[in-house]
């Protein structure tokens, strides 16, 4: 079985996000970049499956040159090959644009299973699993927490509100990995050393037959106009409780007049 795992190289979840000078992107200075945590579950499951059943694991990403570091991390954990669709000089695109690029690359890769995190933690809007599947005309199952392989098919457990849903899908399909699926491994030194020697294939959108002009700028379905941080948390307001009657009145007044929740 051949697996392709799509990963996003995103700011560490612990990053204190600052808005950039243009007011619609984040300030990238001092940002530590990581492979999106949900993508790590996807990679881990693909690696485990390959170890049990043979085949190959290829990691695929869309991003600038720095994303090679993330791809190498995946290679160090055991992926066989890595491909990066270069975003350099492409201009602003949106999730659909990225999905089109990924789908174009995936078409040439003969994957039995296409993996990604149930969501990225960057700018992906959580729609990548369905978009890529739709563009490739493949079934997709998201929020997967357990996988069982059959001949030419797969049984997947997915988190739904208040329970778990068990579905079966033919292969190939697109699987969105969710927290709880597994415990991602830590790269061994041997893996890290081996990963250093591997070559990352870099492709331009044009190499994949995608016209950059068609997915950027005015052609992008979603355009960012402004980015704002959530308001800073207000200091806690303490109501003196010397007189419970008055305190309750004051609380109600504040909830109605200031917080405007009543």
């Amino acid at each position: 079985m051949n697996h392709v795992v799509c990963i996003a190289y995103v700011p560490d979840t612990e990053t204190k996000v600052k808005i950039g000078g243009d007011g619609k992107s984040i300030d990238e200075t001092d940002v530590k970049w990581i492979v999106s945590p949900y993508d790590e579950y996807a990679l881990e499951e693909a690696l485990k499956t390959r170890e049990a059943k043979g085949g190959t694991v290829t990691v695929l990403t869309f991003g600038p040159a720095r994303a090679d570091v993330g791809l190498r991390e995946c290679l160090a954990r055991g992926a066989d090959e890595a491909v990066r669709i270069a975003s350099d000089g492409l201009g602003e695109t949106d999730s659909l644009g990225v999905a089109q690029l990924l789908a174009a690359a995936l078409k040439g890769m003969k994957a039995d299973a296409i993996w990604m995190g149930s969501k990225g933690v960057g700018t992906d809007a959580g729609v990548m699993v369905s978009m890529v599947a739709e563009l490739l005309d493949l079934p997709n199952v998201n929020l997967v927490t357990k996988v069982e392989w059959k001949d030419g098919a797969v049984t997947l457990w997915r988190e739904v509100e208040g329970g778990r849903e068990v579905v079966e899908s033919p292969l190939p399909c697109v699987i969105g990995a969710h927290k709880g699926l597994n415990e991602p491994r830590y790269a061994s030194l041997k893996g890290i050393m081996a990963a250093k020697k591997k070559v990352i294939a870099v492709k331009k959108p044009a190499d994949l037959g995608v016209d950059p002009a068609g997915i950027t700028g005015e052609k992008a379905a979603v355009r960012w106009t402004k980015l704002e941080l959530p308001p800073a948390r207000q200091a806690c307001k303490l109501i003196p409780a010397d007189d419970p009657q008055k305190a309750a009145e004051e609380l109600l007044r504040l909830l109605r007049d200031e917080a405007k929740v009543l």
Partner: protein
Amino acid sequence: MTPTEATYLGVPGTLLFALVLFGFLAAFAYTASRRWQLMTVGGFPESRWDRVGERIRGVVEFGLLQRKMFRDPYAGLYHILIFSGFVVLSIRTTTLFLEGLFPGAALPFLPGGAWEAYLLLKDVVLVTTTAGVVLALGRRHLFRKDRLDASFDADLILVLIAFLMVTDLVAGGASHALSPARASVWEPVTAAVGTLLSGSSTGTLTALYHACWWAHLVAILSFLNYLPTAKHFHVITALPNLFLRKLDPPGKMRTFDVEKAAEDGKIGVGKIQDFSWKQKLDMFTCTECGRCREICPTHLTGKPLSPKGFMVDARKALYTAAPALLDVASGRGDLGAEERLAAQRPLIGGWVDVETIWACTTCRYCESACPVGITYTDKLTDLRRFLVLDQSEFPKEAQTAFNGMERQGNPWNLSASDRDAWTAELPFEVPVMGALENRDDVEYLFWVGCAGSYEDKGKKVSRALATLMHEAGVKYAILGAEETCNGDSARRLGNELLFQMLAQQNVETMNGYGVRKIVTNCPHCLNTLKNEYPDFGGTFQVVHGTELVADLVAKGKLKLTGRIDKTVSFHDPCYLGRHNDVYDAPRELLSAIPGVSLKELPRTRDKAMCCGAGGGRMWLDEKIGARINQARYAEIEANGTDAVGVSCPFCMVMLGNAATEMSGKTETFDVLELAAQALPTHPGGEAAAS
């Protein structure tokens, strides 16, 4: 007449004796050479030939004078009695060998009276050695210490030693009784035995003399051959092991080229032969006295690791693998040695349980207690290195810490940009190195550490130290967001790659600012910065916060005037005390606070029990046995003081947690916090009141 002047079944006694003597010696030479090969086969290189003078001094102090043995005075006494017996009687044994080969021969070149003096000494020692054996048997059977386990080996050896003494005395006594002319006033004890035997017939006396003479020498030779196979190999290896002991700072771990090790496929220790020659010599040398486990936190709380148990298991693995290992090493692979070696019970998971490897807190009580200079933490961390870097197998909690250190520069995985957030609550500005225009007058870099930057109690202590320095007018600065985890936990959890990354980054940052002097409140940071960063080009003078502040108080630059009426216990952090020999500074500082009275804990200073957080255990779950922090806290509670002073942020967390878990009455304070509270400017203090 010497017994070898007789003939036995027609064979001349001297010939028979020569056969026996050289036969046994040849057998010993063979065993010893096999042990030598076993010691030197495989393993990473280690050099222990520097600082010869210091090495010899150690041999005298710990080997000949046996300083550590007297921590248990009773055992120290019987051991020195037996040891001195061995030393003195080795001359006696040589003369007996000579006399057996060449009847009538004696040691040449002795000045007048020397031999007589020696005979007297020998007679005294025959008695004292026997007394030593009796005392030792008493320790093993009548008043056994917990550190000792029942051992047939030990009893056999002791009985054998007593047998040697008795046969020597009886042979001498019978010889004296046979020819009273031989009797000498210089051998009073032998003479007394002779007098006792003098009523017997000549035939009986001759038979007794011959039997004891032969038995004595054959017993000695058997003893010699028995040593390398049993726990008493230390008779031969202890002094060399002390000479070759680790002279580097005790808390410094071995640095190695990680990439090269990966290419060679030799990362840490995965198989018994991967241990260095010195590590194997340690295994040879362990006598199973168990001093190492007396205050071992894992042994005391029922975890599978006891230093002695680990050393004995490793030795068993080594001896079991020896035949196949030596066959492979000598190129006799055609005998299927490779297969036999491969089929050995594995070291990790076979001889040594994985939980044993991860249990160690690297508190080094064991190493400070071992009378023969054996180290344990190096072996356990080398095994961890193999598990982490080669196998990628380790407790999963460690991964969270590794990821945090790698990405955000702290094991808590909190944002790197919040590293100096602890300064916000201070009424004065804390200088940040990178923001200073002129760094020339900065005397100390204040290395805050991850705990001091992110952990709530640790942050308070950072503020206390900054306040104390501020009040004393010390020129200092912090690195702020440029500081990253020092890597202590990563290294001790086996992740050398991550450690070296962090070390290089920090050294680069600090060298970039021309840092020379560092003050830190974290003993783990202190140990790494002071002892391990020199390997990465960072040579700094590193002091602990309590050392600096105690000095400021002593010099009158700080006045501690606020009264704090508390009785205080002091818990020595392992990485400050045993690893870096700082015991007095925190105590001096406590004593300088008006109202504070220090009451030492029963297990204190170099015998202090670990809190359980060292060796990266801070980041791992403690799933087996009782909790180490609670065991230590129970001792603190029993000391009956109002508070316990600590000087390490890890100890603070561990003992603080124990206090909560056990609803304890003894509050935990950092010594620096108490000192800051005694400042005149502290709210409620003199200056604030006026």
